[in-house]
């Protein structure tokens, strides 16, 4: 097994697998798998956002229940694979049809996405300049108005940072849905290994990576459009000189590429 020859062979057969049009169409084709993958990911992200965004804003705004942010961070230590198996065994018998498989994997993906979203939102609101907040109060804004018109826009860079981390992770981890009988790009990977079809497995891996990167680019563009230009200009340079422990930890978490302890690129 000459190593360089081996890897060249893998790469060559990977591309010939990908370039075969027969692999792209049909119910098992790449396009179907891609749509399934996106569906699992979007579903999980929407639910996670619906939970984490209001919760993070509320915690940041009121300063109450900060421990929840710490607690969800600790929850990142739960192994995603174990969680998936546990939910599949637990929820499976009670559900019918596709839901028996979709619900466990969605729950796991949501649990994976919530911590970075919550941390980003909370840190974003927390970091709003108190002067800006006071000024808003001073001109007679209600608590709700302060939240909507001042805190949320100011927090947006860090919120988006959380969204990017979460979605990268969800897309990468949605791969493991294939381990409990669902589709998605993970199917190519798991089936490739089961069939002994390495080019297919490698193609699955590559497609997941490409999808994650494309999504990251798309969200970066979105962020540029959403964030108020005034804020973008006055933002601190990367890693400003603040060194407060909590802030540094939260920021590092919110900014790191993917891995917040789930099964990141890792999944399956």
């Amino acid at each position: 097994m000459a190593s360089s020859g081996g890897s060249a062979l893998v790469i060559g057969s990977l591309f010939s697998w990908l370039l075969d049009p027969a692999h792209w169409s049909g119910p098992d084709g790449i396009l179907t798998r891609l749509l399934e993958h996106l569906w699992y990911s979007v579903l999980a992200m929407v639910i996670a956002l619906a939970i984490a965004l209001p919760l993070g804003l509320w915690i940041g705004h009121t300063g109450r229940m900060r421990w929840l942010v710490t607690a969800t961070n600790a929850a990142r230590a739960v192994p995603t694979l174990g969680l998936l198996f546990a939910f599949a065994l637990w929820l499976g018998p009670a559900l019918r049809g596709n839901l028996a498989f979709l619900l466990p994997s969605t729950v796991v993906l949501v649990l994976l996405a919530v911590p970075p979203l919550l941390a980003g939102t909370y840190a974003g609101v927390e970091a709003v300049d108190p002067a800006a907040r006071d000024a808003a109060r001073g001109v007679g804004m209600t608590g709700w108005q302060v939240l909507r018109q001042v805190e949320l826009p100011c927090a947006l860079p860090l919120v988006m940072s959380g969204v990017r981390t979460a979605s990268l992770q969800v897309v990468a981890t949605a791969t493991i849905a294939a381990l409990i009988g669902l589709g998605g790009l993970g199917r190519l990977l798991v089936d490739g290994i089961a069939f002994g079809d390495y080019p297919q497995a490698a193609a699955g891996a590559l497609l997941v990576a490409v999808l994650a990167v494309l999504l990251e680019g798309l969200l970066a563009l979105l962020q540029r459009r959403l964030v108020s230009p005034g804020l973008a200009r006055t933002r601190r340079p990367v890693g400003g000189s603040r060194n407060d422990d909590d802030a540094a930890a939260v920021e590092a978490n919110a900014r790191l590429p993917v891995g917040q302890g789930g099964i990141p690129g890792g999944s399956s």
Partner: protein
Amino acid sequence: MDWLADNWRTVLDLSLSHLYLAGVPLVVGLVLSLPLGWAAKRWRGSYPAVVTTTGLLYTIPSLALFVIMPLVLGTKILDPVNVVVAMTIYTVALLARTVADGLLSVPDHVEQAATAMGYRGLRRLFGVELPLAVPVIAAGLRVAAVSNVSIVSIASVVGVSQLGNLLVDGYRRIIWGELLTGIVATMVLALLLDLVIQTLARTLTPWRRAAGARS
């Protein structure tokens, strides 16, 4: 918890393997990330390149990486080294950026003061910049540690034993005790590593305690 009582020796063995497979890459990855992060700071133009390239590595699904490793390394298929190398790649993917950010977080005036006191080159890096970057690097290391412990579980699928075996076997034979033990043991290991890193970081930055910083 009958299952645990009957199988604690196995759990202990698997935990040690797990610790080894997740921990060694953490140390090696940190050592490899130092020059990368330093380069990203030294030549600011290279920062986006380093951050993007290492970030890309992280999007490779781990199962795929584990399976492909023997082909790339020329190792045996069940060799734990495959997992160690793959995990090192993930660690570098996380830490290169953190090290760069950590070094960048050192205030300019501190660097200038150090230079004025005669600290130059490597001596300034190891004597002033790195110690000051410890809090940020430690934060990244904590994320990497927890992440590594979680990803390593997947190695069960390619025949390298660790706590993931309990997850897979517990699911396959529907043994709740085994599955839950696997989950809890993995969490405990992650939190333990996290604690070690926090303690190390605190020991390495005595001036922060002296200044009465919260922690």
